[in-house]
C-alpha cells in the first residue's frame, strides 16, 4: 500500500477539519504574529513584507476593526527544523490572534500542520506551496501572495504563442521549483509544446556551467527556469556569459528577476517573466503604494511587499465588518471571503480555496527596467487540487 505524498497529506488534512470555534477575541489589542525570516538569504523579503504590513496598518490609523495592532515578530531563519518551535512560540507562547508568514515553503508546511490543529486565523504572505490552498486548505487559512501554479502556468502559453515549440526546463530541485515545473509542463504539453530536457539542479547549488553547456549543445527554441534571489542573479549572469542570452530566449516566473534586477545588470536584458505583479503597473493603487513605501522605508516596493500590504488591507476590511472580533468564526471567515481589494497588483479577491484570484502579467526587462507587455492570464485561479472547500 503505497500512499503518494499528496494523498498522505490529504489524509492528515481531513482528520482535523472539525468545525471548532476560532480563538476567542480577547483583549483590546489585536496581536498579529509575523513568522518571517529576518536573517539569512531571505532576510530582505522578511523586512519588505513586515514594513509593507506596518505601512498599511498606519494608513488605517494602526487600528483594524477598531482594535490597536500589536506586532509580534519571530525570526524563522527560513529553517524548517526550527519552524515547529517558532510557530509554537507565536501561537501558544504569545497567543497571537492572527498568524502571518512565512517565506520558505518548508517552514510553511510545518506551520500549516500546527495552525490547522490550533485553529488560529492564518494568512500566508509568501510561500507559494500548492498544498497550502490545496490538500491542506482549511476555513481559517488564507493566502495573499500566490500559488506556484499561478506564476508558472501562464508562461507556457506565452512561449507557445511566441512560436517556441521545443523547450529545456532548468530548476532548483526543491518543492518551489518542482511545483513550478509541473504547472508549466501542464500548460506547455496541453498547447502542443515538447520538453526537450528537464535539468534539476540541487538546491542551493549555484554552479551552473555544466548545465549551461548542455543547453548550448541541445539548442532548444527557448528555456524556462526557476531560480530566485542570489541564485537567480548568478544564473542570469552565467546564462549571458555563456553567450546563450542572444541565441536562446530565457523565460521564467517573475522570481527570476524580482529583487535582483539591479544585481543582474545588462545580463537580464530581454528576459520575459510572468508574475502577478510588476513594479511598472500603472494603476492608482500601485503608484500610491510605491510612493508611500519609498517614503516610509527608503527602499523600492516589490512583489513581496505587495502581499504584506494587501494582507493588512484585507484584514482591515473584514475585521471592520465584524467590529474586530477575531473570535467571530464563521462571520469573520465569510467577511474575508467576501473582501474585494483594489490592490497595487490590480483587482484582488479570494478563490473558494482562499487563494488570491488575480491577473498574471507578462513582463520583459528593457533598459534595466521591468516593462509590462500585457496580461498573460486574466483572473488566474489556482486549480486547488485536493481541496474540498466550497466544491
Amino acid at each position: 500500500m503505497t500512499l503518494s505524498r499528496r494523498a498522505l497529506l490529504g489524509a492528515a488534512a481531513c482528520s482535523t477539519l472539525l468545525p471548532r470555534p476560532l480563538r476567542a477575541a480577547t483583549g483590546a489589542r489585536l496581536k498579529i504574529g509575523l513568522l518571517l525570516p529576518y536573517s539569512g538569504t531571505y532576510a530582505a523579503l522578511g523586512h519588505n513584507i513586515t514594513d509593507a504590513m506596518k505601512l498599511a496598518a498606519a494608513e488605517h490609523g494602526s487600528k483594524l476593526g477598531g482594535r490597536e495592532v500589536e506586532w509580534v515578530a519571530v525570526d524563522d531563519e527560513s529553517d524548517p527544523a526550527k519552524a515547529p518551535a517558532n510557530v509554537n512560540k507565536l501561537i501558544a507562547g504569545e497567543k497571537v490572534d492572527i498568524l502571518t508568514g512565512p517565506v520558505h515553503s518548508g517552514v510553511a508546511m510545518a506551520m500549516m500542520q500546527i495552525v490547522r490543529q490550533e485553529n488560529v486565523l492564518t494568512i500566508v504572505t509568501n510561500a507559494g506551496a500548492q498544498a497550502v490552498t490545496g490538500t491542506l486548505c482549511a476555513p481559517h487559512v488564507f493566502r495573499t501572495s500566490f500559488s506556484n501554479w499561478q506564476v508558472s502556468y501562464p508562461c507556457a502559453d506565452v512561449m507557445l504563442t511566441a512560436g517556441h515549440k521545443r523547450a529545456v526546463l532548468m530548476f532548483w530541485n526543491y518543492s518551489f521549483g518542482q511545483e513550478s515545473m509541473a504547472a508549466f509542463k501542464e500548460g506547455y504539453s496541453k498547447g502542443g509544446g515538447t520538453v526537450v530536457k528537464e535539468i534539476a539542479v540541487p538546491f542551493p547549488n549555484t554552479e551552473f556551467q555544466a548545465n549551461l553547456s548542455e543547453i548550448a549543445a541541445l539548442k532548444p527554441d527557448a528555456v524556462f527556469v526557476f531560480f530566485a534571489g542570489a541564485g537567480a542573479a548568478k544564473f542570469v549572469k552565467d546564462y549571458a556569459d555563456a553567450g546563450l542570452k542572444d541565441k536562446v530566449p530565457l523565460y521564467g516566473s517573475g522570481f527570476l528577476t524580482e529583487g535582483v534586477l539591479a544585481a543582474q545588470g545588462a545580463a537580464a536584458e530581454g528576459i520575459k517573466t510572468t508574475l502577478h505583479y510588476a513594479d511598472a503597473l500603472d494603476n492608482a493603487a500601485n503608484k500610491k503604494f510605491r510612493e508611500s513605501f519609498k517614503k516610509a522605508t527608503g527602499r523600492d516596493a516589490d512583489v513581496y511587499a505587495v502581499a504584506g500590504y494587501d494582507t493588512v488591507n484585507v484584514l482591515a476590511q473584514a475585521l471592520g465588518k465584524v467590529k474586530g472580533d477575531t473570535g467571530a468564526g464563521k462571520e469573520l471567515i465569510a467577511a474575508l471571503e467576501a473582501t474585494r481589494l483594489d490592490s497595487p497588483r490590480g483587482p484582488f479577491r479570494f478563490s473558494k480555496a482562499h487563494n488570491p484570484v488575480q491577473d498574471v502579467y507578462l513582463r520583459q526587462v528593457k533598459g534595466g527596467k521591468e516593462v509590462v507587455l500585457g496580461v498573460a492570464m486574466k483572473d488566474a485561479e489556482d486549480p486547488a487540487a485536493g481541496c474540498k472547500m466550497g466544491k
Partner: protein
Amino acid sequence: MTRRILLLAGALALGVVAFSGDRFWLQFLGKAMIGCILAMSLDLLVGFTGLVSLAHSAFFGLAAYALAGVTNRLGLVNPLLTFPVCLLAAAAAALIIGWLSLRATGVYFIMVTLAFTQMLFYLFNDSPALGGSDGLYVAERPVDSRAAAYVAIWAALVLAYLLLARILRAPYGRALEGIRVNEQRMRSLGYPTRRYKLVAFVIAGTLAGVAGYLDATLYGFVNPAQLGWRQSGLILVTVLLGGKGTLYGPALGALLLAFIEHYGERVTEHWNALIAALVIAVVLFLPRGLAGLVQGGRRA
C-alpha cells in the same frame, strides 16, 4: 555532592512542568529536553571517548523519518511497535556509518562523519517520494496529548542520563576513558579499541534516535533540515559550551541555548551576536565550559 542535588532539583523542576498544562512551556521545554538528550549522547563520544562525530543529527533525523514512514506507509501507531523499529533503524545506521568512519582518525574521522550525514540529508531532501525539501507529516502520532509527549521526553532524559552515568562508571566506561587519553597504549594493554569505539558510536547513535523519535512525536513533522551538518554542528557546539566530559554540562548547554534563542530575539534583532559573544567568552575564559562553574566540574 552538591552537583547530585542540583541534578535532582533540575529533574524535579522539569518534571513538575508536566502538570502545568501550559501548552507553550510543554512544547518549549520538551524541545529543550530533546536537545539535552542529543547533547548528552554526543558527549559520550566527544567528552568520554575523544570521538568528534558530525553524524549525530543523521541518526536523529533517520529515527524521525522512520516513524513517519512506519506510521504513514504501514499504519503502525502503537509506540510499543514503532519505538523499537525506529531505534533499530538509528542503531543500524550508526553501526554501518560507525564501522566505516572509524577507519579514519582525528579530523579525517570528523569529515567522514560529515560526509555521511550530508549524503543522508540529500537522500531525503532531493527525493519527492521521501517528502523532499518540504518534509513529511506523521499521519498519527504515537502519543497524541502534548502533556503525555512531555512526560515521555522527560522520562527518556532521566533514563538516558542514568544509563550513560552507569555505563561510564562500569568497566566499559573506564576503557572508553583510557581510549580517549591514549588509545595506542590501550591497544598494547589488550583492548580491541576500534570495537569499543564502535559500540560507543552505536549507543550514542541510538540515543540520538530516541531524541529523533520523540521530536517527531512532539511535533508530528519531520524535515531534511534536521539532518544536515549544520544541526550536528549545533549539537557539538552545545556539548562544548556546556562542558564536554561531564554529561550534565552538555545538558546545561542545551537548556541555556534554548532560552537564549527564545528570549534573545526580544533583546536585539542581531540575537546571533549574543550567542557568538557567549561562545567566544566560554572558550577563552571557561575552558571546561559551563560545567566549570559548577563545583569544579568533576568527572561524572
